């Protein structure tokens, strides 16, 4: 059973700051997805990473997949209040989600 750990659990920063959140697994991911969830809504897919060492960018968000495909990170540059939400990583094959990082960006 693949266990996903996300850190930190909570993060509160000021608008304009940079941040990184992490997703680590006890075993190798076949592929991994990052989702963002806003209050009262379901998660929405941000990105899928498949290849070890892969880097994907989505505007101010940069996603990295570890070379060994056991970890991933999400870096946000110059955070905005609209980035506030719960960030979840998920292993695609076994449909298992991490507990998430709850990000609050203050104006």
């Amino acid at each position: 059973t693949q266990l996903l750990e996300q850190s930190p659990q909570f993060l509160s920063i000021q608008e304009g700051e940079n941040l990184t959140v992490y997703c680590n697994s006890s075993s190798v991911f076949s592929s991994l997805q990052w989702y963002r969830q806003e209050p009262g809504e379901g998660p929405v897919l941000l990105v899928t990473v498949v290849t070890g060492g892969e880097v994907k960018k989505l505007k101010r968000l940069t996603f990295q997949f570890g070379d060994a495909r056991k970890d991933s990170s999400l870096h946000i540059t110059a955070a905005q209040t609209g980035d506030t939400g719960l960030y979840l990583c998920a292993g695609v094959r076994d449909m298992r989600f991490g507990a998430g990082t709850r990000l609050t960006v203050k104006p």
Partner: protein
Amino acid sequence: NAGVTQTPKFRVLKTGQSMTLLCAQDMNHEYMYWYRQDPGMGLRLIHYSVGEGTTAKGEVPDGYNVSRLKKQNFLLGLESAAPSQTSVYFCASSLDRGRGNQPQHFGDGTRLSIL
């Protein structure tokens, strides 16, 4: 463009009562899923379906049953509700995991409280 629709959005039950949560998708997706989300525990898979007429157990299936009689609908049943089943329930659908890394499309959730 409705996507994934869950009904009801809120429900309060007494211990021992039964109910059914309905999920409907209009994207012609093969796969459908039911998750529960509890504070600090993320989303946990209850049951899923890989096509009409099929169901399979996920990580936390006990106390729940599901049915997929029509491709567009996936029902989650609680036969005898327990306070431990108080949670937010999410339904999701995806095109086909076999085609590689398809995203899951989620509904907005059903908030269920068992007293």
